[in-house]
């Protein structure tokens, strides 16, 4: 590679993806509400998508496999957000709170 521009280097994108991934894990541990944890999971999934796109662009530019996997990741993330929303609504109706510390008993 003779390009010196950082936006045309694989390592820039991979480093960004690693940063976002670790930030997402920090958020997953830090947030105490279900919604905050959902947001952090979205951060992690997006980092994975960025990785797929970057590697597809720089290592296998003749194939669209990375694009398709990124699309699938987006779809799964949307489905997951819908499910978590309904779980949050159900939990809030029962416990009057979306705090993970309050939701600590099973029906049994």
């Amino acid at each position: 590679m003779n390009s010196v521009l950082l936006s045309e280097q694989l390592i820039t994108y991979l480093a960004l993806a690693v940063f976002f991934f670790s930030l997402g894990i920090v958020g997953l541990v830090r947030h105490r509400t279900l919604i905050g944890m959902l947001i952090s999971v979205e951060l992690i999934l997006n980092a994975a998508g960025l990785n797929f796109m970057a590697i597809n662009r720089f290592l296998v530019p003749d194939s669209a496999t990375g694009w398709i996997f990124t699309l699938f990741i987006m779809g799964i993330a949307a489905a997951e957000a819908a499910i978590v929303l309904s779980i949050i609504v159900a939990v809030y109706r029962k416990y009057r709170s979306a705090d993970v510390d309050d939701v600590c008993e099973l029906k049994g």
Partner: protein
Amino acid sequence: MTDSLFDLRIAGEIIFFIFVGVSIAGAVIAVFSKRMTRAVLGLALYALGIAVFYLYLGSAFISVMQLLIYVGAICVVIAFAVMLADPSKQSDKRGVIKGLLVLIPGILPGLGLGYLVIKTDWIIVPVGRFPPLSAADIGRKLLVEYCLVFEVISLIFLVAVIGSVIVARMGRNE
């Protein structure tokens, strides 16, 4: 001619770094803000930055899909969750030490993965050897090579929709 082309590339680089800043700021807001409304807006900012990265990686189609799905759908869904569940008063009774301790599970895998990224010998194919991909390539691949995955994902969506409706209805009659 080459001069103006060079200028354009420099301008592209500057815009790239602006959006690196935007996405990092969005991610930090999403993770470290106490109010969930702000976290949702941070997520939207972050998704916008990622969409611009996808544009730089040569896929306008995926970039638009990212904007549509993340900013248009997921952020709106999470905003609805914030409105319905109202978790605005997040209890934060942690001390400073515990607050810093939280960073460890993020930093450790980050360091490991960063080490792997630097250490690995990436075999980079020079850009421009192959014709750029288009959305038609995705369609062809999706319905020929990855047809089974496509169908399974459709099934997952169906199950997700039915499951979320049922879970959200649970306990309404009590």
